[in-house]
């Protein structure tokens, strides 16, 4: 098994080797009672890349994602955003630092419109005293939502449609788009296509690609190995609460990924 990496130069395809990773976790430890879910996990995301986070059930993926999004503050270790150490005690802290997360089922409010969901918690208020009373500027939000979705290639009937009337794929596209719109550095997607059909999955992945092409960094948690190879630039493998391997998707096969997850291949080829 891989040991804790030692520092070496980052030979990855980083355009500027000096630029710090947009999101980095070092030596994260997280315990739940006697269970050590993370035992010194590392994780790195560079700017404008799609990183897949994979691992067997119980490897600590969900826990790592939750520490990175502020749901579970880590017991030990350090999280850095753009090279600067940060403390995520709540999801709000993470969001303020530019890290947006889409959870599997918890992403959207079904009864609200698409526009209202995109702006949930960040509503645009009217200017002046009316705004101070909490009066919404619905037109601005409608227009903003339509423009943002258009830019990401998300097609929905109207931004005033309640989420409940959308298909599963459209719904997930809205959830992902919402995160991308507000993230300034990283979007974390936890199994974004787990419940979707083939066509719908492609539409979500299209949105992810567009975001990446626009310079956004995306972390993708997925069990779907072909999908990982299709969309991700790099893969980080988690095993038994630690990073077991960092792989470039153009150099590996599905078998390699499975081998890394199960521990028969230990390729923590260190790049730090």
């Amino acid at each position: 098994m891989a040991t804790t990496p030692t520092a070496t130069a980052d030979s990855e395809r980083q355009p500027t080797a000096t630029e710090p990773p947009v999101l980095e976790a070092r030596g994260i430890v997280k315990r739940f009672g006697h269970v050590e879910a993370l035992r010194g996990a590392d994780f790195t995301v560079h700017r404008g890349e799609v990183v897949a986070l994979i691992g067997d059930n119980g490897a600590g993926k969900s826990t790592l994602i939750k520490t990175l999004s502020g749901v579970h503050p880590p017991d030990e270790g350090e999280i850095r955003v753009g090279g600067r150490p940060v403390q995520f005690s709540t999801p709000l802290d993470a969001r303020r630092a530019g890290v947006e997360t889409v959870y599997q089922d918890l992403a959207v409010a079904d009864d609200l419109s698409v526009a209202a969901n995109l702006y949930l918690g960040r509503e645009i208020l009217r200017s002046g005293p009316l705004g101070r009373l909490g009066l919404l500027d619905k037109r601005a939000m409608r227009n903003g939502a339509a423009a943002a979705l258009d830019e990401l290639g998300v097609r929905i009937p109207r931004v005033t449609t309640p989420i409940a009337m959308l298909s599963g794929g459209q719904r997930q596209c809205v959830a992902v788009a919402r995160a991308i719109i507000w993230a300034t550095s990283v979007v974390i997607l936890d199994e974004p296509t787990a419940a979707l059909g083939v066509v719908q999955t492609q539409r979500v992945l299209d949105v992810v690609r567009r975001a990446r092409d626009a310079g956004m960094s995306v972390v993708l948690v997925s069990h779907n190995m072909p999908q990982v190879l299709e969309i991700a630039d790099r893969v980080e493998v988690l095993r038994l609460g630690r990073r077991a391997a960092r792989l470039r998707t153009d150099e590996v096969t599905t078998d390699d990924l499975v081998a890394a997850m199960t521990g028969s291949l230990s390729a923590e080829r260190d790049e730090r």
Partner: protein
Amino acid sequence: MSTVEATAGSQRGEFSDWVRERISHAVSELTAATALVVLFIALSFASPYFLTADNLFNIGAQTAVIAIIATAQTMVIITKGIDLSVGSVAALAGVLGAMVVRDLGFSLWAATVVAIGVGALAGLLNGLLVTVARIPPFIATLGTMSVGRGLVFIFSGAVGVYGLPRSFQLLGNGEILGIPFAVVITVLVAVGVAFLLSQTRFGQYTYAMGSNLEAARRSGIGVRRHLTGVYVLAGVLVGLGGMIAASRVNSGQPNYGISLELDVIAAAVIGGASLFGGQGRIVGTIIGAFLIALVRNGAVLLDISIHYQQVIVGLIIWAAVYFDQYRRRRLEARG
């Protein structure tokens, strides 16, 4: 490929989608409004007294209290909560409002402020029980219902508060240009709350919390504060409603409002508020309140016993909730 779903059905499909969307939004309201009109016409034929000015005035005033408290109930129901304490809190507010007039010589307006304060406190209690103590709304407000009713009897010695000046009746029986004062207040309350729910951030959060509490929390909404706020505002309206009810009978009645929660929950649900949260509009609730008031009034005019009224209201609640479930299932089947 990525456009397959969205563009399916072209312009015409989109338009019919849009129409369906609008109608499904208002379908409960339209149904309730139709029932209201039918019942109104039926009662006009069934009873010679129904269309008299006195009776219509009476219906207006009767609707007012139900409508104001149902408006409060609607806000709570939208958050996926329920408030069973409205009846006893209204009684407590009315009795204490009457007592400060009789015993301390408060003016009607000062007494109204007291009643509203009582309601707000009860609402705050409900809100904290739900958000801080994490007691489910049904149980939390069931407790408040019992405590409130107990306090009314304790404060009043279990007898009505009489001996009030005539001016005490202004709120419930007064009129402006022939329109019951209570109706004017109801319109102001309804318009205000409808505006709050549909146009402000507070309203947006109210629907969001009821629709998906966890999503709301993760969106950075101060869920506790907002949910508590909804209960407090509901309490304010319940206090006001209780005061109007007391003013109508020119006394504080410790027995007032027993099973009132059924009427107002029925009004809200008939009007399209969903007990599953996230849905409901004040315009529907007002229609529902009218319907309930008409059922009560019609039953009195037609000499149907109060026991049958109870049965009728129960049937209406079943029908409305069944309809809501049915609508949800169809929507889910589509999605």
